[in-house]
């Protein structure tokens, strides 16, 4: 469904990524991991055609992203990223309408119910907390019924309950046939949802692999530069040196 060939990304003189090959099929959750500034968000944006790669190509259903119009891309992929500015007083329901592909009120209602937004429907965005606004963004992703979701830290700002809701949603949507590519920071969350993992090391190197092979202390420790303990779905950084 989404094929990455020899992708090289530069930001200024810094090489973020060099020569990445990967192929993702529908129905899975791909988690992008890596330290700050490694180019995780940039990788998502290059898939959206919003960041021009230094080399290589990305194709979706056989068509190169670079050759698609913005409209075509917007019908294939949905992007969830930074909280949008709130100065202009958009309401929750207007925000969702701007995202929706069509005037499907039932779908909007469903998304709002799932994200606990029904009571906030007519509130302006600048009257919401960051967590509430993040839920609006996830709902906005849901109402845009596209085969690929690109989610940049979807669990940011969320409380524990809504983090769980969000991860469950991603898993469920992937099982129903969507391709979800998401940037996460929490190893537990990554382990909970990932089918595939892209690990960026911040120096141009990247590794792609099946989640349970990738999410091991041996793979992760050199990339993040911290001690990690545990195995399987229970990975923990070591916050303090343990005194023995």
């Amino acid at each position, binding site marked *: 469904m989404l094929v990455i060939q020899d992708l090289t990304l530069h930001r200024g003189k810094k090489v973020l990524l060099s020569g990445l090959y990967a192929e993702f099929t529908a129905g899975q959750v791909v988690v992008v991991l890596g330290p700050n500034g490694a180019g995780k968000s940039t990788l998502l944006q290059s898939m959206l055609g919003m960041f021009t790669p230094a080399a290589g190509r990305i194709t979706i259903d056989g068509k190169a992203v670079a050759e698609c119009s913005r*409209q075509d891309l917007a019908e294939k992929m949905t*992007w969830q990223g930074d909280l*949008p500015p709130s*100065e202009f007083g958009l309401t929750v329901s207007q925000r969702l309408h*701007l995202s929706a592909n069509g005037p499907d009120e039932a779908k909007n209602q469903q998304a709002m119910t799932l994200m606990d937004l029904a009571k906030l429907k007519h509130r302006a965005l600048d009257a919401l907390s960051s967590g509430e606004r993040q839920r609006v963004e996830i709902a906005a992703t849901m109402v845009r019924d596209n085969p690929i979701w690109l989610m940049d830290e979807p669990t940011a700002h969320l409380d524990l309950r809504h983090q769980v809701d969000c991860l469950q949603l991603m898993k469920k949507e992937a099982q129903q046939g969507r391709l979800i590519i998401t940037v996460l920071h929490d190893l537990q969350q990554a382990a909970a949802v990932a089918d595939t993992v892209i690990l960026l090391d911040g120096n141009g190197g990247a590794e792609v692999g099946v989640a349970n092979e990738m999410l091991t202390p041996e793979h992760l420790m050199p990339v993040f530069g911290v001690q990690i303990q545990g195995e399987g779905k229970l990975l923990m950084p070591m916050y303090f040196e343990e005194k023995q």
Partner: protein
Amino acid sequence: MNDQRTWPLLLSLLVLTAVVMVVSLGIGSHWISPFSPASELDSRILWELRLPRVLIAFAVGGLLALAGAWFQVLLGNPLAEPYVLGVASSAAVGAVAGMMLFPETIWAMSLGAFAGAWIGIASVLMFAHLGTTRLLLAGVVLAAFWSAILMLLLALMPERGVALAYAWMMGDLSRSDIALPYLLLVWGGALLAGLVLARSLDKLLLGEKHAAALGVDVRKLRFGLLLLASAVTAIAVTAAGTIGFVGLIVPHLMRLLLGSLHRAVLLASAFGGGILLILADTAARTVITPAELPVGVLTAMIGVPVFLWLLLRAR
């Protein structure tokens, strides 16, 4: 704020426009009934002096409000406005420069104003990424700079300087250098263009990345908006000089009443700006009778408190 209110509100704005126009036609040195003027002279005053003035005010007010709304989306800043950003002044500089270089051609002034507006926007855009405060600061400083150049140019042409300075600095609706039918046509065209772009503008409210992800060709849209906003500012300035704050007050008020979706906001602003400027001008020509005030004095008196209030509220 909700959508059921949109159409009744727009309809009442339309009715209000008609009422304000008729009443302003009647008001002046003495009351003249727009439906039955008492004498031949009254009828001429009504149709040849008051009606053009009311229509110029309507068109210019609407254009300024539309330009204000566009600038606000373009810069992602609800305090942006042609006058505050110095774009109105740079257009005035361009118009006067055009007039000086090619005194014989009428188009020189309009083209000069357009070039001036374009330069003004380009200079202020360099500061757009630095955030609200610095953008506004840059706008204010640039406005002072353009005003200084304007004064310099006017000082170089003393034979028309002083009176023109008044007109250019504070607005003058008693005549227009652009024929009235054209001005109204431009008003209609600008509104239409705005409505065509409304959906994309809405998406731009979410920021450039979100807009692009939602299928908007942001670069093309921004370029188009720049072209549109500078053309509209230039035409408004050529017609009536620099009149401040209409572009700030009106879109803001309309957003409060109608929410922020542009189809409603632009439609309402095009009429609301017209209404505001007709009212301001009617006051300008009657409050200190027999003398009249420059209309820009009145819009500034309403606009500056509104601007400061918004600035306080913006945290």
